């Protein structure tokens, strides 16, 4: 089964079982020879370096100069400037996605000078609403969603933080190259970008990898992994490079200079990476609180030592302290292999977040700061431990990837409110049916064994994740955390891969009983109390789904895209058309840092071309390359190749600043020109490829809804935060239907803050072509369907906002009916009504007993409300 992005599906499994007589006649194209590959590379424009033509000198503005040259050649001229208020409305919707308020309309109407335009552009680019509008464009590219779709539409915990990250990054004009680097390897950057509070911004970008559709309990997890990575590579390829790389999953690309080997070389990077909830606040953000914990830890150790010998330990133990023995790591039995030893090192393991201390904790007791009353727990022996500095330190301990050559995995562990899961074939959604037994809650503070029976997955690749954190895990049924305490801890002593179902014998057993507070010596009591206070003062970091490194593994080329038919190894590297066939030094782990370097290397012309082309698309309704997500051979040719490359160079030269690109385009006469159809020009340039006029464009789904909130006065400018749920009755009954219902008006929040649940998308936005999030969508559909008219005519939200708008309008100090109509017109259409329009509106009011809500509702139902001239 191949995903949407791929060309040819792998053979269905029914075929392999010999039951499918229809027989696959999938035409697998032959491998592409060296000559053909070179031909594709040299003849297709997109692989060529950026051109260096200087703009013609016919216009002071480079953009106009390039476009005018083409128009003149066709015997055409650019249209005159649009009316000032038309320009202003266009600018507002394009930059911030909202209608200009009446005072802005008056201001610019009174002074439509170039300087005033420049001011308006700068003001809008500095507006918080700019980040919200342009973040949404990016979210379309990464198929942003807060649930995984499929049968139960499970939530991706904390997905909304990524939306906020993008709004901040774009609003703050983070250089696009940095933005891309963070998306590929934000978790690995030696000096991640921090916000003013010290939060790690960079790591948050990698959440984009987890907006992939995820299946509930697939029978073949390896197939699921192959499909998941296919989508992840597809999104990366289309969003950043404008290439359909996943078309090379089953065979060399049919048309582009991309080999199947290139596809699998990229698969290796993703396959060597894992899911984890990453904290936004590294522990160093809370330096003082953290230092206090370390100090308290040392003091406890000192107090402990002072009592170690010859002290009375009432009720603590059945034996005297001097007879306590550390529980040694059990020796291996026949056929066993040790994966982890507390006496060894974590060198091959992956310690993500700050939870697990770098050195093992050595017993016999361990403070349990999570318990309601302070306690020491018996923990004989050395354990890798996440709770010694308090339960508020959280983290994940990941094993190296190993093959399931032994049937059983025994883990010696102790903990509270934590879990250990065995991730087979990269399948993190470890749940019933099928996978439930691979996910174990750890809720016993005494050392004990947890055993996984891996019989159904013999020979598959797997890794353990030992997880101590508050954030829900993908394995939690319905993310129900109620059975876990707020904060817990987890300790792991050893992991044994074994043919034996019985856990290894423990050498010392548990001779000690848990110690209550009052039974401890006073100095230990005090030191423990100090540690608890210090630990409790450490804020728990919010987390975000992210990538983290796992064991670095190159992928096999899957023959015909079938993961069960591994071909040659494809060493990890970037596209051979850009970096050649040399192996790429990837270092330990996934190697994504090196991949980011390659993607951002100046010899890659695609990144900048795709970047500026997308901006162009959003301001003119179509890109210089119309197929914005595909610059390959099956995509469109650029209409103005020299302009495209000039803009790309200009963007790079100006630090990959999106705001710079926008300023460049928004100040052009081409952008500001009129959109009226001119019959004589329409003959020569019917599709307006040469941009002899601006295009008339329909508002995006979000802008339609946000406009209603803006004119009614309901718009709440609040930024960021968890998504607002939709009213429940907007949904049909189906599995995974959200339990919570939201307000009809979405609390007046902008549409970008509405919940994006794959199986329960916002109906109003869908009607206006919000894409369903499954693949990169750089150019949304612009459909014209009656559902849009029905929404504007009959949707209760629309009616409610018109009523609110009427109330607002009647409460203003407007002198009379005409003044109110004028105010409504200015709000809705950014212009004054004509004499006839005033007359018509007055007549309507006269016929309807002065029903203002109905008048305003009629205005909303005009095309002028939802179209940009």
């Amino acid at each position: 089964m191949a995903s949407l992005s791929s060309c040819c599906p792998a053979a269905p499994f029914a075929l392999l079982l010999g039951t499918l007589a229809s027989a696959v006649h999938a035409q697998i194209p032959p491998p592409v020879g060296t000559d053909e590959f070179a031909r594709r590379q040299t003849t297709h424009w997109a692989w060529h370096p950026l051109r260096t033509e200087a703009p013609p000198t016919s216009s002071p503005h480079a953009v106009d100069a390039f476009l005018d040259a083409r128009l003149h050649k066709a015997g055409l001229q650019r249209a005159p400037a649009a009316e000032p208020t038309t320009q202003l409305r266009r600018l507002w919707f394009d930059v911030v996605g909202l209608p200009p308020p009446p005072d802005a309309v008056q201001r610019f109407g009174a002074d439509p000078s170039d300087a005033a335009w420049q001011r308006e552009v700068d003001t809008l680019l500095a507006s918080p609403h700019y980040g919200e509008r342009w973040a949404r464009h990016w979210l379309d590219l990464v198929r942003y969603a807060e649930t995984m779709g499929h049968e139960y539409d499970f939530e991706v915990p904390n997905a909304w933080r990524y939306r906020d990250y993008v709004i901040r990054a774009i609003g703050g004009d983070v250089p696009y190259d940095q933005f891309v680097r963070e998306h590929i390897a934000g978790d690995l950057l030696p000096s991640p970008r921090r916000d003013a509070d010290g939060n790690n911004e960079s790591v948050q970008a990698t959440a984009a990898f987890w907006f992939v559709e995820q299946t509930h309990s697939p029978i073949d997890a390896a197939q699921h992994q192959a499909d998941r990575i296919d989508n992840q590579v597809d999104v990366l390829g289309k969003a950043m490079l404008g290439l359909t790389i996943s078309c090379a999953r089953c065979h060399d690309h049919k048309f582009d200079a991309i080999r199947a080997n290139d596809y699998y070389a990229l698969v290796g990077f993703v396959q060597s990476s894992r899911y984890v909830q990453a904290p936004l606040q590294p522990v160093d953000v809370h330096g003082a609180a953290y230092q206090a914990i370390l100090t308290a830890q040392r003091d406890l150790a000192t107090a402990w030592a002072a009592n170690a010998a010859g002290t009375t330990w009432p009720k603590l133990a059945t034996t005297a302290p001097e007879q306590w023995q550390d529980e040694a790591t059990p020796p291996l039995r026949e056929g066993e292999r040790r994966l982890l030893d507390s006496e060894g090192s974590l060198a091959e393991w992956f310690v993500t977040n700050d939870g697990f201390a770098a050195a093992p904790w050595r017993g016999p007791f361990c403070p349990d700061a999570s318990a309601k009353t302070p306690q020491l727990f018996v923990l004989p022996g050395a354990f890798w431990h996440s709770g010694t500095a308090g339960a508020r330190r959280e983290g994940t301990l990941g094993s190296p990837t190993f093959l399931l050559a032994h049937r059983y995995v025994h883990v010696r562990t102790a903990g509270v409110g934590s879990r250990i899961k065995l991730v087979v074939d990269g399948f993190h959604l470890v749940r019933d049916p099928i996978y439930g037994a691979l996910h174990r809650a750890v809720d016993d503070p005494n050392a004990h064994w947890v055993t996984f029976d891996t019989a159904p997955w013999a020979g598959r690749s797997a890794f353990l994740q030992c997880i101590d954190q508050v954030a829900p895990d993908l394995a939690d049924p319905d993310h129900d955390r109620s059975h876990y305490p707020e904060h817990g801890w987890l300790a792991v002593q050893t992991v044994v891969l074994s043919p034996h179902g019985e856990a290894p014998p423990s050498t010392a057993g548990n001779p000690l009983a848990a110690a209550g507070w009052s039974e401890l010596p006073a100095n230990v009591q005090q030191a423990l109390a100090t540690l608890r206070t210090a630990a409790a003062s450490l804020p728990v970091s919010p987390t975000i789904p992210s990538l983290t490194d796992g064991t670095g593994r190159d992928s096999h080329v899957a023959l015909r895209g079938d993961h069960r038919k591994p071909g040659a190894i494809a060493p990890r590297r970037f596209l051979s058309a850009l970096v050649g066939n040399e192996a790429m030094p990837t270092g330990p782990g996934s190697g994504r840092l090196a991949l980011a370097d390659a993607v951002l290397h100046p010899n890659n012309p695609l990144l900048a071309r795709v970047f500026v082309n997308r901006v162009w698309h959003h301001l003119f309704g179509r890109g210089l390359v119309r197929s914005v997500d595909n610059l390959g051979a099956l995509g469109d040719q650029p209409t103005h190749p020299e302009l495209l490359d000039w803009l790309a160079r200009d963007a790079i030269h100006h630090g990959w600043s999106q705001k710079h690109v926008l300023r460049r385009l928004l100040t052009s006469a081409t952008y500001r020109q009129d959109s009226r159809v001119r019959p004589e020009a329409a003959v020569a340039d019917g599709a307006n490829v040469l941009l002899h006029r601006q295009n008339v464009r329909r508002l995006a789904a979000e802008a339609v809804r946000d406009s209603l909130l803006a004119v009614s006065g309901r718009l709440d400018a609040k930024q960021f935060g968890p998504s607002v749920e939709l009213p429940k009755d907007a949904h049909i009954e189906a599995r995974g239907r959200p339990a919570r219902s939201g307000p009809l008006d979405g609390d007046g929040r902008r549409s970008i803050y509405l919940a994006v649940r794959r199986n329960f998308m916002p109906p109003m936005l869908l009607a206006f072509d919000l894409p369903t999030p499954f693949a990169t969508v750089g150019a949304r559909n612009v459909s014209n369907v009656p559902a849009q008219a029905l929404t504007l005519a009959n949707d209760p939200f629309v009616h409610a906002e018109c009523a609110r708008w009427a109330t607002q309008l009647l409460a203003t100090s407007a002198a009379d009916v005409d003044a109110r109509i004028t105010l409504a017109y200015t709000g809705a259409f950014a212009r004054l009504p004509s004499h006839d329009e005033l007359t018509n509106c007055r007549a309507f009011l006269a016929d309807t007993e002065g029903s203002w809500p109905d008048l305003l509702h009629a205005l909303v139902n005009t095309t002028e409300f939802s179209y940009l001239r």
Partner: protein
Amino acid sequence: MTRPDCPPPSRRDFLRTAWNGFGMLPLAHLGLRTDGGAQRRHHAPRARAVIFLYMDGGPSCQDLFDYKPRLIAENGKPFGLKKEPTQFNDNGNTLGPCAKFAQHGDSGQWISDLLPNLATSADRLCVVRSMVADFSEHTNANYFLHTGHGLQGRPSMGAWIGYGLGSDADDLPAFVVLNGGLIPPGGIDNFHSGFLPAHSQGSVLQMRGDAVANITPKETVASRQRQKLALAHTLDTATQQRFGKDPAIEAAIANHELAFRMQAAVPDLVDLSGKSSGESKALQSLYGLDDEYEPTRTYARQCLLARRLVERGVRFIEVTCPDTHHDRWDQHGNLAKGLRDNCRMVDRPIAGLLADLDARGLLDETIVVFGGEFGRTPFAQGGSGRDHNPFGFTMWMAGGGFKPGTSYGATDDYGYKAAVDPVSIHDLHATILWQLGIDHERYTYRFGGRDLRLTDVYGRVVKPLLA
């Protein structure tokens, strides 16, 4: 036939999408009569419409259609063949059918006594006993059945067919889903247009409340909506004069008029009780609208509406199941009771539908398809259930040029895997398209740099099924 994925915004495109689309449940679109440009036939069609009776959950064919004496003989004994992994892997011994089988009609089709009314239509059925699918999980399997692909995001077959052939109705969409109350796992994406234009997506009609979202005017004064739209139209006209005509704007204006008309058309469609509906008491009874079992009444209403939609020129009608509180046809346990209730729900309405279509001469040009996303195991899950089985199951077609009174293909002795003449989901799609006049290999749509088909790179027309 091939269309670019991003057509230039010509006036014709705007008008066509305007006249082709009409909204659906999450307010999508109801596609209306299309102009000639959307007629995409490769050869003379044998049928003009499809009614897909979708049995959500995977009915147990061993208890309904696939008569296997060996299954009865070895009931309770260890299963005689190697078992493939299943969704729940709680697999027990051989489980015989929970109903008695008999042969029916001149054709002698085997049908169990759970479907007594349908059995009287045995000679109308073309039964395929050797279906195979690629997935054992509901959601993948549902996407696969509906879109020819196991993941989310592809166009449903109704969307392909509606987009390709358009609607013959003036005010109804080409692809309608009559929702009995249950939306299958995978959600409404089973009815989605995917990368096809939005107007080709399935329009979900609910059996309760408003049939279509926002179809009912909210104005309390009856004439008010007309007044408003008149004002909006006047203002639009003035704006057109002021800014000049633009094809996109013209199409949007037409769209508002269309929406207004549909506010009348949809209530008219779903009103069965009024005198003007023309559906007599006797006919309603034939479908089971007077049945004492509520799910039967709901399903009867859906089947009757399906026929009304065919009459109005709708191209593809999918009928989803009402809730019998047995988790659809997904009998992992309590097989006998679940099957009995589900069969009770669909038996009378489907028999009524076939008879009614036949009497009106519509069956000949309408393909009726019955089936689920997979079948069930011939061995027990737990004590009293069956797990998912995509390796061999039964579907049947009636009308539309499918050979009546026919059995095709066979499973092994246990009804486990297709053993003779397997038919894949892609084959089914290819054959249905063929009867509608479409060659599945030539019907493509470019998206993401590739010419995509409903049948992907698979499928063949199963000619022996055709009359």
